[in-house]
Structure formats: C-alpha cells, structure tokens
C-alpha cells in the first residue's frame, strides 16, 4: 500500500468517520471537515504533474487477490492524472458549494457527505486502477453512490424512480463491461490494462475481439449516457444540485469517456471502434442537443446538454480512430481529435460545472427551475447572471471562452474526416461535419435559452415561491472560480497544452507517438478563416435566427410521438417485465400441486426418454434372469388386481384395505426372493401403517373424487404410464448391463469371520452399514417428535403467540 492507494482509499476512510463528526461537532457544518480532503488530495496529485509531463508514469501495486491476478494496482499517467485533478478539484468546489447549498439543520448531512466521499473515492479508483477488476469494482461503486445521491430525498417518488433508473442502466453497463473485461482477460491472460495494451496487435486478431469491444463499449455508453442509454441522466437530476454538478456533468458521466480513452490503445485500431464510437457519439450529440431545446426545467436542459456534450467528446475519440484503421489517413487526424476531446473534456467540466451551480443558485433563491416561471432576474442577481453568461457562451462555442476553442477543434476533426475515402466520400462522409454542425446549432440555442429565458424578459414574482435576491457569497465562490477558469482557459489555452492535454492525449494512444518525441499540442486562438471558423459563424447566425423565431418551429417536436420515446420504452419495459413476470408466474405457479407434479413428471419423462433415445441406452439381456414360476405369475396378478382396486376404489376404506393387500403381497415377494428380514419388516410396517391410516381416518374426509373430468384423468393416465415405462426401461437396461461384480462377496465372507454374526442383512444393518441405521432411527425420532408437535401445538394465524412471528 503506497501513498497512491491511501489517497484512493482516503475518502472511504473519511466516510466512515463522517457520521461521528456530525455528532461530535454539531455546531459546524460537516462540509467544512469534508472539504479538507479533496483540497489535500488535489495538492498531492498536483505533485505528479511533472512526472506525467515527461510522458512517464507511476505504478504502485498492492495485492488483493494475487492468486487470481486481481491486484489493486494504481497507475498514474497523463490521462488518469487529468481525471484525478478534475475529480478532486471540482470535488473541492462542489463541497464548498454544498456547504452553503444544503442546510445544516434540515438535511441529513452525514448521509450526503458519506455518499459523496464514497463517490469521490470510487471515481479516483476508476481512473487510477490498472487492473480491470478493481476498475470494475470502483465503477460499480460510482453507480451505487450515484444511486444513493439521486435518492437522497428518498421519500420523493421521482427521486427513487430516477435512482433506480440510473442504477439499472449503469449497472447493466457495468456488468456488460465486466463481461468485456473478462473476455479480454481470456484473450490476453491478464487483468492489467497496460499488459493488455501491450498485446494489442495480437488481440486484434482474436475471434473474441469484437465481443469484448462491444461489451466494454456498453459499459462506457451507459455510464456516459450515450444514445440510447442516456435516458437515466435527465431523471438523475432529482439529486441535489451539487451532486448534479459533480456527478452528472463533471466527473462520473465522464468515466465512460475515460474508459473509451483508456481502452483506445487496445481497440482503436479496429474499424468497428471508429464506426460504433463515432456514430453513436455524434448521433447522441445531435439528438440530445435537439431534445434539450424543448426542455422547460433548467436542470433538464443541462442534463440533455451534458448528454450532447458527452456525445461530442465520444465522437471525437471514435472519429479520430478512423485514421488508425484506414491506411489512407494520416495519424495526425487522430491526434487532433484526441487533443480536441481532452481539451473539451476539461472545458466541459468547467463551464457545465459552473452552469449547474448557477442553476442551483437560481433554484435555491427562487424555489423553481421552470423557465416558464422565471424571467427578468438580471437586475436582481447580477453576479449570477454574469456567471451564467460566461458558462453558456462557452458552451455555445462563442469566443473568447474555452468552449469556442474546443468546438473549433471538433469541427476541424470532422472536416478532416472528409478526406477519408469512405464509400464515396463526397456523398456520405460529409454527413459527419453536417451532423456536428446541426448539433452545434441546437447547442447554441439552448445555451441562449438558459441565459435569456431566465435573466431577461418579464419578471414574474407571483409565480415564484420566494422573493429572489442575489445569492450569498459562499454560494457564488465555486461557480465564480469555474467561470474564471472558463475565461482563462479560453484566453490562454496553452496553460493547459503541455501540462495536462499533451500528457493525457499521449496516454490515450501511446503507440502512435514515435519514441522520445512529444505530441505537438498548440492551441491557438486565431487560425485564419478556416472552414471551421466559417462553421462557427454559421452556427451563430442560424442559431440567433432560430432562437428569435422559436415559437414558429418548435411545433416539430410534436411530430415526435410521446409514446415511442426511449423513456416510455424504459417505463413500459419495466412495467411489462413486472406485469409479464407476474402473469407468467401466476400462469405456472398455480398453487395446485398437480400442476407442479405434471411439470416434474413431464420433465422426468422427456429428459430420460430423450437420454435413452439419444444414447441408445436400452439393453435387454435376460440370460442371467431367474426362472419364472406359475405361482409367481399368479401372485403378480394378485398384486396388480389389488393395485387396480386402489385406483378404482370409491371408498377410502377399500383403498386402504387394498393397499394393505398390496403390501402383504409385496412381502410375499420378499419371501420368494429370499429376503426373510425384509419380509418380516415389510409385514410389520405394513400393519402399523395400516393402523396409522385407520387412526387418522377418523379425521379424514370421505374419499371424494372431486368430479375429475375425463380429460383430466386421461392426462394423468398418460403421464403415469410414461413414468412407469421410463422406470421399467431403465430398470431393464440397468439389470442387463451389470458391468461389475458386486461387492457383496466381502460380506458373505466376513459376516461370520470378522463381524461375528450369521444373518448378513442384520450384520450389515448394525455393523457394516450401522452408520445408516443410526441416522435412520434418527429420522424416525424426528418423525415422532414432529407428529407430537403437530398434534399438540396449535398456533393461531402466523403463530403469533409471543415475541413475534
């Protein structure tokens, strides 16, 4: 266990103490204690910056299950460090924000901070793990802590709904991802990502490659809310706003991006990767930005925008990979795309974080997030307004903010893709930039909505629950810091270029960088009237126009029927699953024992019949069989006659008498077959059981046949015949294939010599196999005690006589 491990585990350890903190130091907001941790961690991790800037990495291993190759291996390289800094940095800001956001008195803070710390630790674990199993473990932790945070106000139905939805989808993804990891581990015989990446070329040719890729991508897509799995994210907005800012925009949803980036060295050389990741990302971006516009809840808009932005980053990672797969393209396209992705990732965290916090402030101060009720807040909340402008403009891709830069790079990557000689370039590849552009237009529109619907227009105090005024300073600190970063990164992008972006991008696909060289990352603000700039200009113009005339065209949303949305699909799917299972279960779980027996016997007949038929197992060999005497045949006849009497009996006593007759005849067979002990026992048992039957009969009903229908009886008869035939067939076959001599010679030899007895059966019972007998009488004892208790002890319903039950 090194410092790194302790750093990862620190949040968990702290989480354990949080509930005590709350008790011991009740006067101070718990958040202040918690705040220390991310700040300290941020400081610690900053020290690794020089290491990663050299494109070198650090590995620390602590063993967990070394026998299975599952170890807690912490791995720091550019990519993970970037994420770590995001997690701890934004984490610190969010905690700070939450101190003012969540009331000390009203909320159960210890829960909140426990969950949050758990999440932080989990996230650190995800990005720092080299071992896929530990990665998966932390991955599921993020899902769980997200579940708990979304359901923080657990008595709200929507919270629980959202929590369950997010968990179902992300855990589903996680499980699939685990499957993918396991397939990878089979292919590469290791759980270490580094070692897997080293074998990338061999893995590419493995037949399971595609399966592994799809499974891993399912994990990434669900976590990063890609189409069609994004539906959980809008519902996750039921969480307190600091949580939304932290988990559902800045960090957790980016875990999917991280995963894709992390596994790029392994998968990116495959054409499928390009298609799946690129197409899904781009379509998500388009679809979500389009849908964001129609939202009325501010957090809803932000949720869809997050989905859209994640799609953007995702598509960059995918599209870039085209150059790795297709020989015709220059690998630089990939670097461009990856750098754009990394850069946008940082930018998105900053502007979206600040936007969420702004929305939180609005919610906090006005009591609503519904844009139809808000408006004209500009004068009342000037600081908030400023912050929101910065965030939204950056998101819309307007200069001079960082969003502009990364958006430009995004366009550039898409345009470069047109060089690809892809099924008649001119016609189809142009779709990529076109989609990107349309998506950006909608992004522009909703960004504007956030700012202008809320802060301009008519102020409607009557629709608000509280009288709005500017937020306290504490609430403004965190978004302000982020807003400043937005501007700073926009104006001085190269602050990041070599410190964070280059190492991260280099870590994504180290293999394409020639040894000893660095990636050339230079982000410039102005690069001439390039196609991408024209695209941005187009976005702005068209965006402004569309925003102005919004009521005219929003009717197109009505063309999307409400019934076939993915949400609807999820809801009705879940509903159908419950209803359906209920229906199915009720159909076969009739509670009627006959049904169960029918299933059982049907399976008995089918399985064994099939086995006999398929294996041709039937043998017939009567050569060793004993001769048949005339009187034996008559006795068999007697036995069968008595049996048939039972079947046809109309009175209960008749059937008992007939059963007794069967029993006596059976004991006669024991006599014939040289088993005197058996005959003795069978006789006594038969008599005693008959006596028991009679004893109980006093209380038993008359033998009613409960008007069984002909068909019912016929069905029974067929099944009964089937069972009988199978038993007989196996019996004959088993008897006909006596493959070994029995061990009975030993008993015949030693009964007298060693056990000092003459009656072999009895000696076997009390000596050779006396162990059986000991437990056999135990069985009898239990039966007697049970009967005693059964008759004497009569509890009322549920047996609630005393304490409980």
């Amino acid at each position, binding site marked *: 266990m090194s410092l790194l491990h302790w750093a990862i585990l620190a949040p968990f350890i702290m989480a354990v103490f949080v509930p005590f903190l709350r008790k011991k130091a009740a006067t101070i907001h718990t958040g202040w204690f918690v705040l220390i941790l991310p700040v300290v961690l941020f400081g610690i991790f900053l020290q690794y910056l020089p290491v990663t800037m050299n494109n070198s990495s650090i590995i620390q291993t602590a063993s967990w299950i070394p026998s299975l190759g599952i170890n807690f291996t912490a791995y720091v390289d550019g990519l993970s460090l970037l994420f770590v800094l995001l997690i701890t940095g934004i984490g610190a800001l969010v905690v700070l924000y939450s101190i003012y956001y969540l009331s000390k008195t009203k909320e159960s803070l210890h829960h909140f901070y426990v969950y949050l710390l758990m999440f932080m630790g989990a996230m650190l674990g995800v990005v720092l793990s080299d071992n896929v199993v530990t990665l998966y473990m932390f991955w599921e932790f993020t899902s769980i802590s997200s579940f708990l945070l979304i359901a923080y106000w657990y008595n709200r139905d929507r919270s629980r709904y959202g929590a369950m939805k997010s968990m179902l989808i992300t855990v589903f993804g996680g499980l699939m991802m685990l499957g993918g990891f396991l397939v990878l581990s089979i292919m590469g015989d290791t759980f270490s990502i580094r070692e897997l990446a080293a074998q990338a070329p061999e893995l590419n040719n493995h037949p399971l490659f595609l399966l592994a890729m799809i499974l891993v991508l399912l994990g990434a897509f669900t976590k990063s809310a890609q189409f069609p799995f994004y539906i959980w994210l809008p519902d996750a907005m039921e969480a307190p706003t600091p949580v939304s800012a932290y988990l559902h925009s800045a960090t957790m949803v980016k875990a999917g991006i991280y995963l894709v980036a992390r596994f790029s060295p392994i998968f990116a050389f495959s054409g499928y990767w390009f298609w799946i990741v690129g197409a899904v990302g781009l379509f998500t971006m388009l679809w979500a930005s389009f849908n964001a516009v129609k939202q009325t809840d501010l957090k809803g808009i932000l949720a869809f925008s997050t989905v859209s932005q994640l799609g953007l980053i995702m598509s960059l990672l995918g599209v870039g990979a085209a150059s790795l797969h297709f020989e015709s393209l220059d690998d630089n396209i990939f670097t461009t795309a990856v750098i754009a992705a990394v850069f946008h990732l940082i930018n998105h965290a900053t502007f979206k974080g600040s936007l969420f916090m702004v929305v939180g402030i609005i919610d906090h101060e006005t009591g609503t997030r519904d844009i139809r009720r808000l408006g004209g807040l500009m004068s009342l909340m000037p600081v908030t307004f400023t912050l929101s402008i910065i965030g939204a403009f950056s998101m819309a891709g307007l200069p001079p903010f960082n969003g502009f830069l990364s958006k430009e790079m995004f366009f550039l990557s898409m345009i470069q893709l047109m060089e690809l000689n892809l099924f008649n370039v001119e016609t189809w590849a142009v779709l990529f930039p076109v989609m990107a552009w349309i998506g950006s237009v909608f992004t522009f529109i909703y960004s504007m909505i956030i700012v202008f619907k809320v802060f301009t227009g008519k102020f409607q105090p009557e629709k608000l629950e509280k009288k709005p005024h500017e937020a306290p300073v504490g609430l403004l600190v965190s978004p302000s810091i982020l807003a400043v970063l937005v501007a700073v990164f926009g104006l001085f992008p190269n602050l990041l270029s070599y410190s964070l972006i280059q190492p991260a991008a280099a870590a994504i696909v180290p293999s394409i960088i020639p040894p000893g060289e660095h990636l050339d990352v230079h982000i410039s603000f102005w690069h001439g009237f390039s196609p991408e700039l024209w695209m941005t200009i187009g976005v702005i113009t068209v965006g402004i126009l569309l925003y102005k005339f919004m009521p005219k065209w929003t009717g197109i949303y009505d063309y999307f029927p409400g019934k076939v949305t993915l949400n609807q699909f999820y809801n009705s799917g879940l509903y159908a699953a419950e209803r359906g299972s209920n229906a199915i279960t009720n159909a076969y779980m009739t509670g009627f024992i006959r049904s169960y027996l029918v299933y059982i016997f049907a399976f008995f007949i089918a399985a064994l019949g099939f086995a006999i038929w398929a294996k041709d197992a039937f043998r017939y060999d009567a050569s060793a069989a004993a001769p048949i005497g005339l009187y034996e045949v008559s006795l068999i006849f007697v036995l069968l006659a008595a049996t048939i009497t039972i079947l046809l009996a109309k009175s209960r006593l008749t059937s008992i008498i007939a059963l007794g007759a069967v029993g006596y005849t059976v004991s006669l067979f024991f006599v014939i077959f040289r088993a005197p002990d058996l005959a003795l026992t069978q006789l006594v048992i038969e008599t005693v059981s008959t006596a028991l039957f*009679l004893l109980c009969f006093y209380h038993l009903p008359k033998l009613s046949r409960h008007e069984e229908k002909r068909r019912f009886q016929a069905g029974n008869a067929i099944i009964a015949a089937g069972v009988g035939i199978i038993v007989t067939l196996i019996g004959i076959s088993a008897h006909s294939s006596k493959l070994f001599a029995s061990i009975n010679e030993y008993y015949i030899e030693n009964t007298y010599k060693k056990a000092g007895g003459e009656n072999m059966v009895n000696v076997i019972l009390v000596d050779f196999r006396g162990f059986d007998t000991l437990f056999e009488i135990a069985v009898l004892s239990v039966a007697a005690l049970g009967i005693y208790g059964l008759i004497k002890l009569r509890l009322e319903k549920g047996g609630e006589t005393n304490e409980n039950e």
Partner: protein
Amino acid sequence: MIEAVLQISLVVLAAAMIGLVYRLVKGPTVPDRVVALDAMGVNLVSITAVLSMLLDTSNYLEVILLIGILAFIGTVAFAKFLEKGEVVEYDRDQ
C-alpha cells in the same frame, strides 16, 4: 414326491389367493373386504410355509408366526374402525 406336492399346493394356494382378491376387489361391503384381507393373511401364512419347505430353509418360520400375529392385529383394527369409526379410544368409560 414332496417336491411335486409342494408345487401343487403352491399353485392351489395361489389360485385361492386370486379368489380372495376377487372378493377383495368386488366387495361389496367393506366388511367383506376385511374378511378377504384376513383370509389373505392366513393364505399368506400357508404360502410362506410351503415356500420354506420348498426352499428348504428355516428362515421363514419367523415370518409365518409374524404374519399370523399381524393379520390378527390388522383385522381387529379394521373391525374396530368399522364399528366405532376410531381405532384407539382415549377412555372407554366415557
């Protein structure tokens, strides 16, 4: 000679058994069946006795007595059940 006689007796006894089973199956009343069952028990004793001679073993002699005992107990139990509806009374004087 004994051998032949034994075989013949067995067949005769088995035939008698079938007759008893006829009564057992036919009824018509339950006491009829009980009578048949009792007779079957007795018949069983005969068959066992003959068999033990046929197999020339004394191992079944216990069985013979046992069947007698049990047939008696069984018949009595049935009779009592038929008569009183219950087999074991708790207190007769009540």
